[in-house]
């Protein structure tokens, strides 16, 4: 079965985060109430005209620059004509012949470059919903929400590569504050097109497209299923027909949606109601200057500056706010190795549990920095620090206050520790006896008992040393 080469290209629609829609003044804010954010323009009433909301332009350019594209100084809008109830005008305003940006690339972990064919601006359609009584309902809140479509060349050879590309893309547009890019809300929609060919064939096979993929998981599953389907057909000697496959999330299966429309059926022509979009070199330069550090750049820098592993770096840079939080929190902290795990495990766990972002945490980077420095100075051990962190996340109190509430000083003084150890020895005389008779491994047990008694408030190093000393007596 391994005789086929899989070729995949990806079209991605990303909603651009602007206050108002792309061709009118309606709000883009999500609302449950259907047809609330609509006006004559986005409803396509007779006689209305679109005017470009320029807010979308710099945001799209930023994305294009992040993907190493050429920004076209002249681009233009066009009409894509087709009938569907969720399309108010009977055509979608998009860019066709003259897109905003062309010929970029994204480098994958393996070093492979995925070529970006084009990035263009367009308007989103409304939504058609089918209710239980088989009525079709229309909601035009989404109609006219700005989109950019990012089209790759057919450069992927596996679903893994596609997922990596899309994850990177999501990270990039979030870093640039261009989009919230949540797949489950349709803010980022990836549509792979897939074809198979025999190893010695030069020509690409007939491709099919998959739609309705609302998560990375679905995309992965969808691609795998489609590759299987095509393999099976080809091995039976059948031909692949160009279709759009619909992914059924519930049943986890693909079914053909409709025969793929060819370009001719869209009857593209230049949009006469909008002038060309002309951009000056100066304007593009200004945007270049205002670019923030991209995820890949940040990852590389954090690895270098903080000695993070690639995997640690990936987790920490998965989100721009989180990466910033990390950098601020570890400022001046010496023993980075020791505290990094807080950013890999503990803090992500808190965020996940509460389903919040780092900005919504009850404590700030200053408090965390204090705590991390306490670890540095061995004032608290890691276990105790974890407790404190948990309490910080619940109460928002500063670590000093938490320690005070928890029973005075950070650590018990030597005298207290000594007394405590003597107590432990008394309580565990049998084990002490056995230890003294050569059962070395019981030392650990005794340390544990001391720690338990100290409720994490004693420096483990101190316990270790003192216990050894006292046992020698």
């Amino acid at each position, binding site marked *: 079965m391994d005789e086929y080469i899989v070729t995949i290209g990806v079209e991605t629609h990303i909603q651009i985060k602007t206050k108002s829609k792309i061709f009118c003044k309606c709000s883009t804010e999500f609302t449950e109430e259907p047809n609330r954010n609509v006006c*004559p323009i986005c409803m396509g009433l*007779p006689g209305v005209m679109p005017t470009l909301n320029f807010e979308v332009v710099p945001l799209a350019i930023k994305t294009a620059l992040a993907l190493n594209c050429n920004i076209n100084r002249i681009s233009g809008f066009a009409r894509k004509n087709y009938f569907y109830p969720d399309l*108010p*005008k*009977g*055509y979608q305003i998009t860019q066709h012949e003259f897109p905003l940006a062309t010929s970029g690339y994204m480098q994958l972990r393996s070093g492979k470059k995925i070529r970006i064919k084009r990035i263009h601006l367009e308007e989103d359609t409304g939504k058609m919903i089918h209710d239980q009584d088989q009525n079709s309902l229309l909601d035009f809140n989404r109609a006219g929400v700005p989109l950019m479509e990012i089209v790759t060349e057919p450069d992927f050879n596996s679903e893994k590569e596609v997922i990596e590309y899309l994850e990177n893309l999501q990270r990039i547009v979030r870093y640039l504050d261009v989009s919230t890019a949540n797949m489950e809300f349709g803010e980022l929609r990836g549509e792979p097109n897939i074809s198979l060919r025999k190893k010695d064939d030069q020509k690409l096979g007939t491709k099919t497209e998959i739609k309705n993929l609302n998560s990375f998981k679905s995309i992965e599953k969808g691609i795998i299923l489609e590759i299987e389907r095509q393999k099976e057909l080809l091995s039976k000697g059948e031909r692949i027909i160009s279709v759009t496959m619909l992914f059924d999330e519930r049943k986890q299966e693909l079914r053909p949606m409709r025969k793929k429309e060819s370009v001719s059926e869209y009857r593209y022509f230049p949009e006469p*109601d909008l002038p060309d979009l002309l951009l000056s070199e100066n304007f593009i330069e200004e945007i270049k200057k205002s670019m923030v550090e991209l995820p890949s750049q940040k990852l590389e820098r954090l690895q270098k500056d903080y000695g993070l592993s690639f995997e640690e770096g990936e987790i920490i840079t998965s989100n721009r706010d989180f990466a910033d939080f990390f950098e601020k929190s570890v400022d001046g902290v010496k023993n980075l190795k020791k505290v990094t795990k807080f950013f890999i495990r503990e803090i992500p766990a808190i965020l996940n549990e509460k389903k919040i972002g780092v900005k919504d945490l009850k404590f700030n980077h200053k408090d965390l920095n204090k705590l991390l420095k306490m670890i540095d100075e061995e004032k608290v051990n890691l276990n105790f620090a974890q407790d404190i962190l948990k309490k910080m996340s619940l109460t928002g109190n500063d670590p000093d206050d938490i320690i005070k509430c928890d029973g005075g000083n950070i650590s018990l003084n030597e005298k207290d520790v000594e007394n405590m150890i003597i107590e432990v020895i008394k309580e565990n005389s049998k084990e002490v006896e056995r230890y003294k008779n050569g059962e070395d491994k019981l030392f650990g047990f005794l340390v544990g008992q001391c720690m338990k008694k100290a409720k994490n408030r004693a420096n483990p190093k101190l316990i270790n040393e003192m216990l050894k000393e006292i046992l020698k007596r």
Partner: protein
Amino acid sequence: MNIEDLRESFLGGKVSPVDIVDSLYKKIDEDDLNDFITLSKNIAYEQAYLSEKRYKKGDILSETDGIPFSLKDNFSVKGLRMTCGSKILSDFISPYDSTVYERLKRSGAILIGKNNLDEFAMGSSNETSFFGVVKNPHNREYVPGGSSGGSAVSVASKHSTFSIGSDTGGSVRQPASFCGVVGFKPTYGKISRYGLVAFSSSLDTVGIMTLNVSDCKKVFNTVRGNDKHDSTMDDHINEKRDLKKICFVKDIPHADLKVIKKYEEICSKLERMGFSLQPINLDFIDLSMAAYKIQTMCEASSNLARYDGIKYGLQKFSGDNLFDIYSKVRGEGFGKEVKRRIMTGTYLLMYENGRYYDLSFKLRDYISNSVDSIFENFDMMVLPTSLFLPFKIGERVDDPVMMHLSDSLTAFANLANVPAISINGGYYEKLPVGVQFVGKRNDDDNLLDWVKIIEEEIKKDG
């Protein structure tokens, strides 16, 4: 009455805006020419009442305060029906104001109603309207021209002092010629198209129909100027200069000899006024008709796609499937001529035929360059507005080819994007004959000034 006279009577207290509105509605009813689809009586009386108060107090808003006007029924007015002369929109109430109406309302002018028109402005005789043909006031058996036929008739019959029409290939100038009034098509981008229902967006212009050129200037000054809703505008205007050189067209194929005769009379009149007329050739006319047809039909097929019976307009919710619903609504809602153009346009835009649309742009460039080169040597061009006189109702309904010839002397001005105006050049057997003056791009103000003088000269001779 024209704007100037009407204002004088308002100022002198001889007559009030409310009186005028009363008498107009009476006359519209009596004349029964079918020039209106909707009368806006509520709006008119309210606006007239307010205007009357302003005249009494002496704080008059503008030159057009209290002046009754009408809009071709493809301009949007909030709360009023906008049919575009089509069954598919016969019950459509618009929820917003077009920019043109907005500006006129602000100037204090009074909206009398919405004028009849060829369906979606596609036609040259007003016979394609779902609301029936409009009668030419000069002879009720004759067509008023189109597509702004209702507008021309309402001005000619003094049902409104001026009317706003739309001109995509001659739709304001040709009916002006047929009804003996003034029809002005400015340079593209001088008047906002926001709220004008699109026929062919790259050629559609807002036109003005009045009793004389002086009124036309006043209305133009009220409605012109950039609009945040229309990003295809450009308010650049050429500097004022004197009219010196005029050119005329020597051979006009297909033209009715009666039209030519009148045209020659006007030309000699211009010569008597001291202008030397030089002949030019309009050998791009045939090409202009090809470009015009391809472009308008392609754009129309897309512009009219929104009338699908889903959100507004004619609705048919019984059907086996979506396609069924679409076919029913559009099959029943559109008239023959509109369907013909949508189908041709759709066909022309299909991939295999896409080059036709591209080609039409090349042709358009060629025509534009040809017209520009004429205006390198001349200030103004004079030519007939229409190849023929008004014809009888029903005479040419089933002859689309002959019908399309109607635009041949006017469409090039839209393609080349230059201003043009038709004024009455006299009568032939009691039917009006128009004469057209075409100016250089952005020469709108100059053209109006020059033609105003010529109009006075023509009127002098009677």
